[in-house]
Structure formats: C-alpha cells, structure tokens
C-alpha cells in the first residue's frame, strides 16, 4: 500500500467539495422547532381569519364598506346617505328585497350585550349586503357614461398596485390592524371592481 501524493489528495478533496449532499433534516423537523420558538407565525390570512368566525364577519363588513365607499367615491356617485336623501325614487323598484335603512351606519356606536350578539349582527349585515348587491345588479340601470368600462379598468390597475403594496406591507407588519384594514379594503374594492369590469352596465350603481 502506497501513500497518496499531495495532488491525488487534492483531487479527492475537490471531488468531495463538489459532491452534492442532502440536508441533514427534513423541513418538517426544522419547521416544528421554528414554530415552537415562535419564529414561524401563522400567515396573516390564516391568522386573523380562520380563528374566530366573528372576525371573519367583521372582515366581510369591512370589505363591503371599503368597496362601496371606494366605488362610489371614485365614480362620482352619491354616498349611501346622500342616495337615501335625494334619490329615493330612482331605485324605488317594487320588490320584496329587504329594506336597508341608509342611516343604519349611525348605529355603529350601538353597544352589544355579548360577542355572540355582535357576531349575529355582523352575520345579518353580510347577508343583507349580499341581497342588496343582487338587488342592485338586477334593478339598478341608472345612467352612467358609456366609458365606465375603461374607467373601471383603470381603477382595477390602480387597485392592483395598491393591493401589491399593502400585501408587501402586511408581510412586514402582519399583526398591524391598520395595515390589515388597508389590505382588506383594497382587496374588497378590487374584487368589486373586477365585477364591474366584467359587467360594467349592470353593476354601475355599486
């Protein structure tokens, strides 16, 4: 048996350096430890939305308020309160749809006896919103400029940019309630605008 030369050893070392080696652990093992140490946090979407149903309901309401507010503001429609005061006849289509009191938002300061009561109220609000949207889609054909489709498309592009920015901000501050609100409001407005782009004439009163 002879010894290796220096060059032969260097050759073996070079091969060892280039030899691919698998990780020593699988990711689940690493992730479990990281989770135990609090290094892995629940993703924002799972963290705030999946744990409690009343939070989901609150988010839904936030979505509709944000979407409605942004939608009406950007296309120059009167707000819900103005609508109730000055345009009562325009949408006065006889129907059995629920009558939503336009002044109802002022009851936001109302107190609730329990979380369950507040949660039930939010659930009802979400259902009212859905029915109101369907009603408007079916009946509101008030006049809008014919170029509204282009306007919605522009708004959608802008909202996409805002959405990306808020999503990035959410990664930086996942637990910040203000950032979460911006994110949700943008997401809601974007979803609503996408519907507008798809059906600009039918939903223009949104």
């Amino acid at each position: 048996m002879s010894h290796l030369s220096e060059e032969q050893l260097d050759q073996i070392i070079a091969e060892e350096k280039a030899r691919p080696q698998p990780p020593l652990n699988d990711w689940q093992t690493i992730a479990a430890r990281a989770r135990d140490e609090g290094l892995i946090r629940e993703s924002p979407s799972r963290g705030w939305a999946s744990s409690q149903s009343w939070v989901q309901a609150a988010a839904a309401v936030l979505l509709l308020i944000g979407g409605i507010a942004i939608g009406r503001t950007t296309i120059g429609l009167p707000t819900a309160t103005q609508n109730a005061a000055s345009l009562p006849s325009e949408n006065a289509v006889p129907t059995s749809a629920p009558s939503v009191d336009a002044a109802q938002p002022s009851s936001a300061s109302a107190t609730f006896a329990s979380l369950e009561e507040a949660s039930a109220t939010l659930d009802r609000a979400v259902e009212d919103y859905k029915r109101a949207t369907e009603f408007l889609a079916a009946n509101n054909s008030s006049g809008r400029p014919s170029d509204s489709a282009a306007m919605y498309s522009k708004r959608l592009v802008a909202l996409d940019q805002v959405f990306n920015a808020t999503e990035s901000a959410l990664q930086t501050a996942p637990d910040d309630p203000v950032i979460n609100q911006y994110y949700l409001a943008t997401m809601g407005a974007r979803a609503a605008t996408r519907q507008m782009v798809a059906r600009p004439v039918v939903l223009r009163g949104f």
Partner: protein
Amino acid sequence: MSEMPIDQLDLKRAIAGDERAMQRLWSQHAPHIDAVVRRLCGDPELAADVSQEVWMQIFRALPSYRGDSQFGTWAHRIAVNRTLNALRKIRRLAKLEVDIEDDSAMVEMDNDRTFLAESIEQAMTKLSPGARAVFVLHDIEGYTHGEIGEELGITPGGSKSQLFKARAKLKKLLANLMDDSTTVAGKGKAHVAPV
C-alpha cells in the same frame, strides 16, 4: 462560492415568520450549510442535531442580516460558529493548542493500520475533532489559517501544523482508494465512494 442572489421579498417574509419563505431559504442553502456541519461533526446523528440548532440560529438572526455579504456566506459563518460551539460544549473540541502539543492528529494511528477508508468522509472521522476542524475549514471551506485561528482560538502556525498532520493521516488512510482506482481504472469506479 457563487450563489443565487437572495430574494429580498423572501427575506422580509421569512423575518416576518412566513413559513414558505423560510422553507425556500432552507431549501436553497441547506445542502451547503448542512455539509459543513456534517464534516465538522463527523458523526451523522450529532450533525443532524447541530444542524437544527444552526438553522434556528440562522432564522433568529435573520433580522440582523444587512446584505453586506452574500446570504450563503453569512449563514455559513453562523453554521461554523454554532457547530464549533456545540463541539466545545460536548468536549469533542478541546483546546486545540493542547491537542497540538499532544500531536493529536497522530492519535489512533496505530489503530489505523488496519483501517482503510473508502471515502474521504469516512477517513475524516478518524481525525481528531481539532484536526478535522482545521482540515475542513481550510481545505474544503477555504478559510485562511488566520481565520481558522480566530475561529478555533489557536495561532495560524498551530493551524498550519494541524493541517499538515491531518493531510498526512488522510493520505495514508485513503491510499487504498487510489490503489483501487488504479486497478479498476476504466470500470467507472469513483475515487470517492458515497457513504
């Protein structure tokens, strides 16, 4: 060492605790990071445990990563430091100066007369922890003797001495490898057999 630039968004997400972003960092760098841990430890089971500590430390320290060096280089430093600390804690890496005085690289040489390594990874397990650390850091990871001295708390001269002895021992342990490769040349046998 060249590497893909780290995705800054992934980094931010990992700092924020996003599991997918952390997994992407791990997937990209674990092969190299774990390799140095494995080589320094010598023992696969110990290396797996130390690797977990290393990755926890990398994730804990993510907010302090400023991008002054490549992410892999930064993480590699953490891996080396953490592994050496772990070896010190379990006393596998005694004071190297003492090892060198004791001519540690030659320890077990008598037993090695009947031991012929089939791979350099196997051969490295026959080195003392201190000699293995010097060899791995210098010949495989590319550290200078000065850097090794700082990491291990020895002089550059001590590092050179330890490396010389480590290489001498490895050449002897791996001699059959080159003999085999000569006799079976053309049969496609690799110089370094996988373990």
